[in-house]
């Protein structure tokens, strides 16, 4: 009985890899779609996460630079003294936020499934 030949195993293996890759990529549905940038509590702009760009947000201390790249966003430059929002690094998950208090600028990722955070409880 040669129901399955060597090549068949190869094809099945390849197909398994494809299925695995597809499953690992499905996170997409729950991923954030948009970046909400606030200035002084008001919405400054809301832009798509899927288009790479740089947004300059003028605040009371100077200009904060928000960079959107490859489905993630971060504050690249901020005039604040402690640089907390810059050191927060890339925001990737829905609900992730970076807040530059001194310059009154905040960046938040919207859309997809929000993860729980301690503030929700």
């Amino acid at each position, binding site marked *: 009985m040669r*129901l399955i030949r060597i*090549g068949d195993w190869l094809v099945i293996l390849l197909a398994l890899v494809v299925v695995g890759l597809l499953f690992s990529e499905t996170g997409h549905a729950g991923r954030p779609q948009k970046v909400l940038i606030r200035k002084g509590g008001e919405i400054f702009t809301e832009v798509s996460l899927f288009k790479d760009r740089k947004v300059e947000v003028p605040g009371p201390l100077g200009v904060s630079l928000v960079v959107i790249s490859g489905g993630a966003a971060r504050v690249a430059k901020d005039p604040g003294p402690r640089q907390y929002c810059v050191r927060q690094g890339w925001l990737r998950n829905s609900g992730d936020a970076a807040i530059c208090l001194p310059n009154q600028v905040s960046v938040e990722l919207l859309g997809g499934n929000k993860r729980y955070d301690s503030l929700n409880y």
Partner: protein
Amino acid sequence: MIRSTIEIPATREDHHVSRMAALAIGLSFVDAAIPLPVPGVKPGFANIVVLIVLARYGLRTAIWVSLLRVLAGSLLFGSFLSPGFFLGLCGALCSLAALFLASALPEKFFGAVSRSVIAAFAHISGQLMLAYFWLIPHVGLFSLAPFFAAAALLFGTVNGLVAAHFLECEKVEAVPQVPIQ
């Protein structure tokens, strides 16, 4: 009753094709009778027939059987020209194209299981593409892709094994001249 004056001579091959297509249609009824949790996922048992026909009579006959199955099957199900019909047709065409490409693989190492899995993947890719570009142009559609792919792998392997089993039985019996009943 007036006898029809139009005579369509049917060749031996025509009879084979229609028998096989009828068998395939019968199997698509089995498909439809099996409830599955994910909408759009079907075992595709009719493809066992296509695989066997492909191995026995070649791609040309397999194309006939496959397309006849889609057409006549849709008439029986009452889904002719419905979105489901076009999805099925697109899947069948993609499968056949993939089977054509897969015929380049050496027979010695790649059997019915390979062809079945390849065709199953071509089928779901074709269907997903058509569904995306024609019915639901939303990225969310592709979040179904992994489930379709897993089903394609599972049912592709199973159907391939069944087809390989029948083809193997035939070899053992070694009755090359017997016409198909």
